[in-house]
């Protein structure tokens, strides 16, 4: 019974971790093994964590407004290190940045108010868990 492992990380100078913890806990309750990295992670720390944990998905939470720079850097390091797994971004993301993030290769962007059930379904779909 493979149990997909997912990483939930807070990127950059941002201590608002309630949302990330709620998501991490919800995914754990949905049967995932969730590694929560805690706050103030650098993009390279998150990529290293995903490699060492052999994770199948990275969930990023950002409320600081620096998502374009940090997620861009994250995607660049992932390519450099040959890590090819889906990245989801959650937090306060203006609509105009959403498209740009998706263009960078992010698999999905989800703001406040997204039902937990929806997020669980998306994660299941992305890591290939059968219902």
């Amino acid at each position, binding site marked *: 019974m493979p149990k997909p*492992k997912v990483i939930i990380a807070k990127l950059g100078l941002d201590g608002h971790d309630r949302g990330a913890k709620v998501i991490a806990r919800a995914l*754990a309750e949905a*049967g995932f*093994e969730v590694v929560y990295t*805690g706050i103030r992670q650098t993009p390279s720390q998150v990529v*290293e964590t995903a*490699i060492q944990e052999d994770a199948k998905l990275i969930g990023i939470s950002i409320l600081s407004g620096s998502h374009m720079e940090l997620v861009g850097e994250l995607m660049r390091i992932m390519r450099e290190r040959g890590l090819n797994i889906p990245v989801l971004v959650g937090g306060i993301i203006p609509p105009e940045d959403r498209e740009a993030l998706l263009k960078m290769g992010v698999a999905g962007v989800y703001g406040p108010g997204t039902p937990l059930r929806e997020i669980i379904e998306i994660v299941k779909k992305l890591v290939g868990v059968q219902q």
Partner: protein
Amino acid sequence: MSVDINGLIERTRNWDKAAIARLITLAEEGVEIPLNIQRRSHVIGITGPPGSGKSTLIYAMARKIPQDRRVAILTIDPSSPFTGGSFMGNRIRMQELTSKPNIYIRSMATRGIRGGLNYATIAAVNILEYAGADYIFIETVGAGQSDTDVKYVADTILVLVPPLSGDEIQALKSGLMEIGDIYVVSKSDNQASESTYRDLLAMVDMVREVKGDSWKPIVIKVSGLYGYGVDELLKLIDDRFRELVNNGKLNESLTNRRLLEMRLYAYDLLEKRFAKDKELENDVANGKLSPQEAARRLLGMELPRLDHVAVAVRDINNAAEKFRRLGLKVGDPIIVEEQGVKVVMVWLGNTRIELLEPLNQSSTVAKFLENRGEGIHHIALEVNDLDEFIKRVQGAGLTLTGKPSKGAEGIVTFIHPKSLNGVLLELVQRRISNE
């Protein structure tokens, strides 16, 4: 999807973290990773109740270990018994170490029934030792007094005892408080640590006389958060490692690890079978099977079962060689004078084939060969209770060849082939049938 396991194993030698990570995942999925382990790592188990500072202490130690030493950290968190998921937060305290080239950190969930270590943990230790780790820290779940399996895989055990965690009576209890090589009073940045320290010192003095070990358990006060006592602790750990190398204990402990690996792998297989066998679950739920019968069925120990099939042959060495060539496990010939036969066992899972060659012309097997030629001589069933089974035989109107007699493995009797469609059916009740 086929995976190149040998390729991954090769890559671990260069401390390739992606390869190590992938192999550990495979082990978590129950895949056997074939490795030839030469002891070289100091495996250090860190145990103690939840919140006693295990992650923080590992962080404080690992950051002080020189960059040219390879450090692996396995940090174990509990799986939910309800959903199977796990919220793993131990990395939070160590994330600063994540980008260091010499350090590999892996979070592992307990998965399964036992709540302590699982097969994958042992496999991960093997993989990391093979990959050339100098230190392997195992942070246990901290389930408390039962969290003691770690002593079979770790060379050194650190038991963390935070201040204010009970009086000297707690310190004297069995289990966790017997396994420590080094007792660490964690969070020793406040006054309360002093009395915990004194209680532990008194306990250690009492235990030492009983254990008869050359290593005297040590008590030390440490604050992982502020770094007090960490250098001293690392020195103690390295001193102990030298002692284990010098007295040969490091190599000896591989036996314990292999035995634990066997046990945990068996639990793993059992869990998987249990999860798969919904029919069995239903049969127990609606009372068709007793829990004990179901458990025996799960383990392939349900009786009656096919004990063996005996085959009469003219040349036993020739026959044995054929089965050997099929890749089967074939035993050495055994002479059984009373039966007038030479026997070779061909082992198959929980049953076997017995090859029989007559020792002389008066043997029943010789007569069988003369009348019928080579072929299946008899089939044997192991039964729970031979007396009870004989009543069934009589009830069915079948005849026995004679009274039950004592054989090498228990009591046996035969049903005559004339009454059973030409099959000579042996019935065996082993000496301990309920084992």
